[in-house]
């Protein structure tokens, strides 16, 4: 990289099913203002803005960054709008980081959001096309068969998904911003919740949220000058493979395996399980935790479920995963990837409050999208990469 870059400000909105108290403008502004306040910067200090969100049809506005530009202080500045399916929040942060790493800009604001309550995502995902009746019922209908494929391959105990959901839902109780909080959640409550897309139960899936996440990314000069500790970006990576092709392993996609391997190489990490202190990853259906533990090379193939079973991914485990409560607790689709990246940054900055992992020095942020085909990841740490 031409320049070191670091997260010097993090801001998230409160997440809820319907944020009727704000417009889209108010929502992104809430996240951006919190990030700027955290960075102790003003709008004028920002050189460029990068916006990310999932499909425009989720809110019914084409290229909404154009009307949001003014509220993000974008007038007279360069502004980019990223869209890489569900991984977009992560990719957006990576594009923002690259604007700094390239040496082109010194301080960049990036915001990712979704305000699903203003339209209907299930509708947008099931637009009736001629010639083809729709049979896949939204994201759950797409991913449930992959989960069944994983269960068949790995022989994982059937309650693995329930255990993941319980852990994440308990973590969410420690996160004041989380959307879905179930104070009396327990194993039976999840087990007895209705099957939606068999084998996926209601409480093993994510909610639909309104919310936004913002980051301020600065170069080395600004990171060193900041009063709060920066989260140094050690490495970023993105990988894509096509949705459907003959011989594609949809359960354990190569794009994810290679993205993680490339990321660790760039960050100088040889043993990810040992060297990474905690990971915030994109788990919209609980079973994806064990699947991604394998995909991220934390566990051997078909053994990711053992990490959940042994408590390795709990807050007091050897590799805490989804300390924030994860996507299972909060899912403003376009923002979800960036929330993962933000949580990784908050951990190494010591900012995570009740869900802080003591002494976290190196953390992974991960997002994926499309039909498990778009991956974006970063490693952040409390010190710059040597």
């Amino acid at each position: 990289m031409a320049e070191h870059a670091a997260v010097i400000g993090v801001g998230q909105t409160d997440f809820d099913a319907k944020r009727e108290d704000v417009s889209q403008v108010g929502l992104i502004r809430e996240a951006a203002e919190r990030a700027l306040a955290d960075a102790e910067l003003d709008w004028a200090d920002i050189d460029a803005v990068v916006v990310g969100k999932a499909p425009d049809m989720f809110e019914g506005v084409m290229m909404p960054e154009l009307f949001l530009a003014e509220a993000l202080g974008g007038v007279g500045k360069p502004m980019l709008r990223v869209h890489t399916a569900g991984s977009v929040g992560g990719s957006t942060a990576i594009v923002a980081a690259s604007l700094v790493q390239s040496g082109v800009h010194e301080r960049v604001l990036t915001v990712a959001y979704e305000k699903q309550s203003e339209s209907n995502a299930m509708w947008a995902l099931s637009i009736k096309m001629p010639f083809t009746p729709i049979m896949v019922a939204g994201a759950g209908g797409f991913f449930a068969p992959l989960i069944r494929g994983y269960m068949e391959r790995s022989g994982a105990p059937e309650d693995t998904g329930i255990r993941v959901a319980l852990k994440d839902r308990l973590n969410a109780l420690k996160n004041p911003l989380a959307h879905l909080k179930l104070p009396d959640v327990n194993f039976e409550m999840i087990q007895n919740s209705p099957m939606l897309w068999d084998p996926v139960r209601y409480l093993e899936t994510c909610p639909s949220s309104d919310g936004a996440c913002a980051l301020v990314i600065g170069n080395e000069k600004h990171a060193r000058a900041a009063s709060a500790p920066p989260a140094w970006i050690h490495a970023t990576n993105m990988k894509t493979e096509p949705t459907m092709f003959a011989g594609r392993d949809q359960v354990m996609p190569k794009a994810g395996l290679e993205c993680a391997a490339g990321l660790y190489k760039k960050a100088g990490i040889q043993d990810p399980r040992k060297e990474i202190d905690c990971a915030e990853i994109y788990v919209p259906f609980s079973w994806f935790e064990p699947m991604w533990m394998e995909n991220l090379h934390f566990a051997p193939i078909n053994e990711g479920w053992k990490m959940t079973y042994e408590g390795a991914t709990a807050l007091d485990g050897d590799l805490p995963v989804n300390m924030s409560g994860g996507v299972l607790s909060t899912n403003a689709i376009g923002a979800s990837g960036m929330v993962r990246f933000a949580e990784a940054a908050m951990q190494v900055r010591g900012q995570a409050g009740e869900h802080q992992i003591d002494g976290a020095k190196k953390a992974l942020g991960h997002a994926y999208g499309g039909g498990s085909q778009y991956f974006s990841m970063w490693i952040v740490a409390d010190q710059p990469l040597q």
Partner: protein
Amino acid sequence: MSEENEPITRIITPVHVEYTYTPGVASERFLRGVREGKLLGGACDACGRVYVPSRGACPRCAAPTSEFRELSDKGTVITFCVVRVPAENIDVELPYCTASILLDGADISFTGLIQGCPFEEVRIGMRVQAVWKPEAEWDFSIGNIQHFEPNSEADVPFEDIKEYS
């Protein structure tokens, strides 16, 4: 608080946009086939793998799929899920079972409904056969296949189909 002081939290702006879709050269061949009750797969010019329906390209080679081959309407369940939640634009009665089905002669699975047996009996590796609508109702639509149902053939071992899952 009087009505005029109530916060406005929502306005509704109906949006209507119409689109004309072009299926493309390969999909058109497939749809013409299905109109005649035939399932046509497209073979990749580079690697020979057979796609059904083909969208015109083998995504792993970025090569056209020029040659068309008629495939069997029998196949193997690669994976499945039982849907118990309603979704927009889906007219099937709940609950229902959708499956990824690998048609004989194809190298990629295909989504279909499974009927004709209790859901508990649906399993990975199960052999199924297409049940077509009456010929008079055939259109340029994969909806000509009403659903798939089990046939009496022996299951395919998971190891043999794993690479398609």
